[in-house]
């Protein structure tokens, strides 16, 4: 089969500017005669390294990876906007890159004029633009506004027009960089239909995206970039699964690191304010410390410390507590919050009518949450020891977090145990087997090794 894209050992090295260098002046460059040497990189950053792959003509190819993994750089190389530092990259046929929609629009002039100029910019002739003009406008659904200056457009209208022009260039190779995130549902649908039509017509498509579902659904082949290198490539389903597992492992490490920081943080100091949510939820630690919570661990069903869970698992919050003097007035409590500060659940030993008898020396308090029924997202945990009247001994607010991962992208906070029942004229076929990710079997996950 003939190839549309052939990449051989492609590397892209960006120069990283030192502040000092970035603000160097022409004068100094001329005085020291270093004009050209200054333009050769000293501090460099390797965005892509040793990337080799081929895309057969007529296939749809997905590129996935975390932010900063080199996806967009790869796309820019394929679009010809930048050139590889090493290796060779050959793209056959006319390329149209949907990297930023409407990148060339001029705000002051009308949509009509912008379409004409943008079309020419993307490689159409004047006549071709005229021929396709009506289709473009119809596709963008902007018939009413096409003669208004583009600056009056909403960002959705802007992106729609940009997409419409780019897609009507009728390229042999279409490069798409996460642009389907713009626009409403209906328009996204339309874009996907258009892309599907491209596939049917045997065009080659490359999609860079964070939407793994899209990759699984539309791509014939997927490439996973990790730190500028090819981590995996092949069947989209397998590659996205490998990627998901890796991301879960990476988050595990990240959350564990945050955890460790919270435990070692000095009492008065609050972690960065990013945890402040719209509900005024602000992370911190306070209290008299007559009772001290010395350690907080989040444990899975097998007693191992973990920070990424899937629905249905059990989560145990284990508090190590210490009191130097014997106490009889104490309550242990726990609060669970969504990332935006919404209180998901809160309870304490007093509310559940446990009677405090004595606390002295070291002790451990565990709250076992059986069968987590939460939707995907990050959750924050408050733990506290306080008097019955609420006076805090040691209050840890939002210092601990865990993440729920799920294949099902349902919304809200709480996922009740549920099932669908259809009867009569309502016929739906059940989804394929959708196993939740199994995070328990491989300690640490592959992320630890990667």
């Amino acid at each position, binding site marked *: 089969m003939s190839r549309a894209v052939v990449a051989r050992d492609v590397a892209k090295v*960006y*120069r990283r500017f030192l502040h000092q260098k970035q603000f*160097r*002046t*022409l*004068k100094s*460059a001329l005085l020291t005669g270093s004009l050209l040497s*200054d*333009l050769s990189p000293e501090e460099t950053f390797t965005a892509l390294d040793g990337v080799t792959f081929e895309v057969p003509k007529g296939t749809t190819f997905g590129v996935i990876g975390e932010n900063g993994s080199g996806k967009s750089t790869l796309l*820019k190389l394929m*679009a*010809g*906007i*930048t*050139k590889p530092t090493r290796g060779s990259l050959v793209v056959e046929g006319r*390329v149209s*890159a949907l*990297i*930023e929609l409407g*990148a*060339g629009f*001029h705000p*002051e*002039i009308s949509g009509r*004029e912008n379409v*004409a*100029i943008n079309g*020419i*910019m*993307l490689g159409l*002739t*004047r006549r071709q633009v005229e021929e396709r003009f009506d289709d473009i406008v119809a596709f963008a659904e902007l018939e009413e506004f096409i003669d208004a*200056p583009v600056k009056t457009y909403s960002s959705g209208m802007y992106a729609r027009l940009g997409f419409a022009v780019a897609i009507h260039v009728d390229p042999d190779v279409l490069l798409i960089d996460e642009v389907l995130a713009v626009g409403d549902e209906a328009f996204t649908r339309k874009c996907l239909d258009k892309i599907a039509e491209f596939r049917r017509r045997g065009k080659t498509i490359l999609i860079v995206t964070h939407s793994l579902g899209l990759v699984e659904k539309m791509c014939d082949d997927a490439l996973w970039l990790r730190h500028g290198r090819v981590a995996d490539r092949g069947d989209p389903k397998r590659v996205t699964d490998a990627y998901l597992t890796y991301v879960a492992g990476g988050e595990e490490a990240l959350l564990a690191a945050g955890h460790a920081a919270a435990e070692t943080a000095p009492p008065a100091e609050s972690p960065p304010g990013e945890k402040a949510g719209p509900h005024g939820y602000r992370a911190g630690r306070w209290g008299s410390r007559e009772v001290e919570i010395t350690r907080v661990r989040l444990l899975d069903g097998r007693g191992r410390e973990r920070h990424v869970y899937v629905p249905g698992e059990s989560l145990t919050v284990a508090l190590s507590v210490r009191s130097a003097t014997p106490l009889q007035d104490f309550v242990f409590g726990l609060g669970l919050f969504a990332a935006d500060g919404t209180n998901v659940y809160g309870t304490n030993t007093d509310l559940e009518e446990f009677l405090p008898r004595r606390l002295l020396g070291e002790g451990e308090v565990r709250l076992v949450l059986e069968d987590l029924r939460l939707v995907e997202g990050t959750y924050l945990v408050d733990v506290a020891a306080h008097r019955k009247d609420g006076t805090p001994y040691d209050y840890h607010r939002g210092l601990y977090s865990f993440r729920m991962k799920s294949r099902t992208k349902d919304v809200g906070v709480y996922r009740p145990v549920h099932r669908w029942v259809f009867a009569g004229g309502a016929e739906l076929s059940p989804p394929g087997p959708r196993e939740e990710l199994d995070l328990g079997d491989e300690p640490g996950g592959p992320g630890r090794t990667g």
Partner: protein
Amino acid sequence: MLAQLATLLRYRPLVQSLVGRELKARYRGSVLGFLWSFVNPLLLLLTYTIVFTKIIPGLHSARMEPYYLFFFCGILPWTWFSSSLAESAGGLIAGGNLIKKVLFPAEVLPVVTVMANLVHFLLGLPILLAFLAWEGRLRPAALLLPLPLLVQLVFTLGLALGLAALTVHFRDVQNILSHLLHLWFFATPILYLYGEVQGTVRDVLRLNPMSHVIVSYQQMLFDGTFTHGRNLSLAGLVAVVAFALGAFLFDRLRDTFAEGV
């Protein structure tokens, strides 16, 4: 350089539509709209006429009378030159979106700037010719106008390409440039007569290609003669060299634009 010219020719439709856009966009939203192309030079003329006939009169000799007209002959092409350079210096950065996000021939940007300003110059020209005719000074020598115009075009293009490329890496260029252009304005015989300058200053003026371009305009339009041909040809040679250098520098730095802007 020939390859550069070929590229530019290939992108002619793009340059054309971008120049059109530039002109449309410039005065969009203003009450006078496109009339500003005519009003601008007139207002400029009025300002300088007031300054040099009312506020500080007597600085110019009788050979420059009517002074406003003499000045007009020089300032109109100079405005084309200086606005082109000032605008193209920041042009690549302003058009950064195109360079970073679209496969876009970067050289088109400075060329569009120069061409858009050329159109403004050409729009101002009929006003100048009308004034000349009114003063009874329009002579057949005015038909030679394309000569200095061509020299100036090549020279401006070369500088614009070079400046645009340099500014990407040395943002200082933009700041220095405005002062440099100011100095250059006074080092070009626009306010005064080239023939009346003596000594070292004259030698300096002679080295300035824009002197010969402007003097050519002045002779063809104001004096109705043209005796500056040899100097203009030399300036033309310098212009070609400037273009080659500018194009070379631009080409050399081209691959760094997408990262530099």
